[in-house]
C-alpha cells in the first residue's frame, strides 16, 4: 500500500498545475503551496517540470535529453526492451521534428524507490527521448 501511495505522490510531483502553483508560491513567499520552505533548486526543478526543455511548438512532441530531466533526480533506469511494432505515421512525425533512428522503448525503472514502467520514443542518433510517460506501477511488461 505504501508503495502505491509512493507512486501516486511521485506522479503528483509532476502534475504541472501543482508544480506551477508551487513555483508561483515560491516566487512570493519562498514556500510551496502547503507552506513548506523550498530551496531555489527545488523551485527550479518544479519550473523545469512545468516547462519541458525541448517542447517543439504545436507538435505535441516534448523532447528530453534524459529521463531525469522529465521525472526528476529520483528516477533511475533498471532495464529496457524495445517495442515490437512502431507505425510509420509515428516514425515519420518524429523524424520530421528530429531526424534520426527512432524506436519505441519500454523501460523498467524506479521513481523515488518505487517500481514504475516508463514508455517513450528514443532517437538513437541524437540521444533524445520523446513524450515519456509512466504507464503503470510495477514492471508488468518484464514479468513474462
Amino acid at each position, binding site marked *: 500500500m505504501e508503495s502505491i501511495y509512493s507512486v501516486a505522490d511521485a506522479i503528483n510531483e509532476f502534475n504541472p498545475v501543482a508544480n506551477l502553483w508551487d513555483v508561483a508560491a515560491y516566487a512570493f513567499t519562498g514556500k510551496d503551496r502547503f507552506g513548506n520552505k523550498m530551496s531555489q533548486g527545488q523551485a527550479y526543478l518544479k519550473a523545469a517540470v512545468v516547462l519541458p526543455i525541448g517542447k517543439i511548438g504545436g507538435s*505535441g512532441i516534448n523532447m528530453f535529453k534524459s529521463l531525469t530531466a522529465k521525472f526528476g533526480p529520483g528516477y533511475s533506469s533498471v532495464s529496457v526492451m524495445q517495442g*515490437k511494432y512502431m507505425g510509420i*505515421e*509515428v516514425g515519420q*512525425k518524429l523524424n520530421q521534428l528530429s531526424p534520426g533512428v527512432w524506436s519505441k522503448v519500454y523501460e523498467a525503472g524506479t521513481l523515488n524507490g518505487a517500481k514504475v514502467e516508463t514508455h517513450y520514443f528514443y532517437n538513437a542518433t541524437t540521444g533524445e527521448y520523446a*513524450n515519456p*510517460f509512466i*504507464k503503470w*506501477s510495477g514492471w508488468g511488461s518484464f514479468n513474462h
Partner: protein
Amino acid sequence: MNIEYLENNLLNVKDEKYLTVINFIIDAIRDYPEYELNDTAKYFNEVRKILGTNEITSITLKDYIDKNANDDNENNIWIVSSLTSLFEAFDFMNLNKISFENVLKEINSL
C-alpha cells in the same frame, strides 16, 4: 483480460494467426497513454469513445489516424501509436478472414 496474464498465456494460443493479432492488441494497450490501463475490455471501450462509434473496424481506425496524426495534444502521438497497432491487428484479421468476435473469444478462453 489483463494483458500481463494474456502474455503469460500466449503459449496456449495454438493458431499463429490469432497469436499475431493478440500481440498487436497487447502492443496497442501498452501504448495507450492512460496510467494503469492494462485490461483489454477497458481498452476497447476507450477506443470506442475516441472513435465516437461502437464499431471498431480497420476503416474507422484508419480514418481516425489519418485525421488526427498531426493533432498537437501531448498524448496524441501515443494514441495514434496505439491505434496504429490496433489497425494492424484489424488489417491482419481482414486479410485472414478472422472476426473480432472470434479474437475476443480466443482471448477470453485463455
